[in-house]
């Protein structure tokens, strides 16, 4: 059979990329600058959803606590900014470092701290599997949620306001268009990284674990450590998304860690197509746009989402991405 010059998959991906690249000028030309910040939010949640897809779609770990890492990443940025404007030193750290507004430092810290949280939560959660794994990741996220509510220094339930977005070399993140492209660049970079990862030896171990972990162990793979590593990478990705989310809304609150947020991220992955990496981007766009449009008609917009989701789960195992790009090969 002849292969077409341009496959359906390449076409969908190419079009998507062009659309995302061209969005800010188009939005500005249409005088709808609001779209730029809406789509920044979509890109940020897409990043979180792609990171969840890594563990859910490739390693078969259904975490319902992924919002925890989003929240931790956001709080790292929020807390660093808080101390900078407050002038008080950071707790738990030696010296009297009073925070930073530098994106390079704050975002790196967000990635590292959320990776550390993922290491601890993952190490404990992975002693279970299946429904228990879902429940324990959920429980950890809720614990963090209540922990941050109890932190009155950082606003408790109300969270922390950022006076301004982080500073970035050569760019003004306060400008929505620049910020949008930074988000897009980071998302594309992360997707590329994940794409390499899922096709590497490490990635094959993940896929093997998803299909038949017993067989993996009997072949000699110490599956625990590889799955934990994957969980940590995913947590780090969500942490970066959290750092961006904090900048996007210039506000951080425990709500980011609430289990409904984790649920939304999972819905993005399932809706867009599990185990495809690109799908979760579509899922994030679909969910957030649906929310934006439907929420203006009814606050019970989730009622409409429910049937859509059931339809996707039952009839389109590769979600929106599978629907657009075709069934595709075994690697998405």
């Amino acid at each position, binding site marked *: 059979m002849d292969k077409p010059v341009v496959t359906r998959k390449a076409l969908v991906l190419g079009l998507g990329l062009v659309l995302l690249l061209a969005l800010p000028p188009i939005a500005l030309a249409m005088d709808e600058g609001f779209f730029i910040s809406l789509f920044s939010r979509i890109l940020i949640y897409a990043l979180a959803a792609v990171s969840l897809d890594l563990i859910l779609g490739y390693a078969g770990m259904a975490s319902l606590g992924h919002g925890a890492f989003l929240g931790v990443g956001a709080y790292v940025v929020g807390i660093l900014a808080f101390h900078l404007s407050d002038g008080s030193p950071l707790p738990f750290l030696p010296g009297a470092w009073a925070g930073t507004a530098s994106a390079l430092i704050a975002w790196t810290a967000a990635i590292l701290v959320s990776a550390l949280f993922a290491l601890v939560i993952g190490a404990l959660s992975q002693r279970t599997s299946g429904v228990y794994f879902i429940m324990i990741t959920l429980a950890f996220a809720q614990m963090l949620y209540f922990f941050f509510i109890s932190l009155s220094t950082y606003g408790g339930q109300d969270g922390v306001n950022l006076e301004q977005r982080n500073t970035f070399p050569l760019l003004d993140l306060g400008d929505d268009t620049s910020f949008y492209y930074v988000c897009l660049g980071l998302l594309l970079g992360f997707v590329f990284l994940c794409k*390499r*990862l899922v*096709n*590497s*030896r*490490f*990635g*094959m*171990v993940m*896929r*093997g674990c998803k*299909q*038949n972990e*017993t*067989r*993996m*162990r*009997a*072949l*000699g*793979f*110490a*599956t625990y450590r*590889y799955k934990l*590593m994957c969980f940590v990478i995913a947590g780090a990705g969500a942490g970066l998304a959290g750092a961006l989310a904090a900048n996007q809304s210039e506000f951080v609150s425990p709500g980011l860690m609430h289990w409904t947020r984790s649920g939304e991220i999972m819905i993005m992955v399932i809706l867009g197509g599990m185990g495809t990496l690109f799908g979760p981007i579509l899922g994030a766009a679909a969910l957030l746009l649906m929310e934006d449009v439907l929420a203006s008609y009814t606050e019970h917009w989730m009622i409409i989402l429910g049937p859509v989701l059931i339809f996707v789960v039952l009839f389109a195992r590769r979600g929106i991405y599978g629907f657009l790009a075709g069934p595709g090969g*075994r*690697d998405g």
Partner: protein
Amino acid sequence: MDSPAAPLLDVQGLVKSFGALRASDGISLDVRAGEIHAVIGPNGAGKTTLINQLSGEMAPDGGQILFDGMNVTAMDVARRARMGLARSYQITSIFPEFTALENLAMAVQSGLGHHFRFWRNAKTDPARIAPAMEGLRRVELEAVAHSMAGELAHGQQRQLELAMALATGPKLLLLDEPMAGMGPEESRRMTDILLPLKGRVSILLVEHDMDVVFALADRITVLVLGKPIATDTPARIRANPDVRAAYLGESP
């Protein structure tokens, strides 16, 4: 024992209970290097339970397992596998969403290591793929190399699983009814695959098909209700009156 070399596998007084049921009731047996040692016994005799304890998937309540000069009784499954203990399952256990070739490549990768390699493409890595193809050839599955393993015929899946176990380059193969659910034609092919391994790979073979057992085994242990009632050469097992009464007499 007349052989001065220590056996490759030495099982001593293995005990495993499920509630009141003694699935392993003091099992002692050994497998010498290069030997095919068959374990036969009626349904529910505790053959799979024995294999599960040898592979490390079940912890025995008592007794010990020495493999390749090491006490592996408390060692986890993956480490035992890396020491050279490979197994197949009574109920086929493969990666259904991988191609046949990729199933083999996973087994090959287990021996290669470097599982924390994140960047280089594994699917085109000759270090994984070339030996994987070689392994498929050994079981005559190269024609279906690029078919999804889950879509292969039952007999082909059984062959694939055997090939995976072999591809790890094991010192000892634990085979749990490799012919389970196979027709006579498939069964014959499987025997043809196993025969050339005789003398080269040490095997602990659990099998119901007596023709296969008598064709392959150097020694046979008969297990009844979790207890070995005899261990001997095939000819003497066939002639053993206890065995005939307990087991062979029942099969046509």
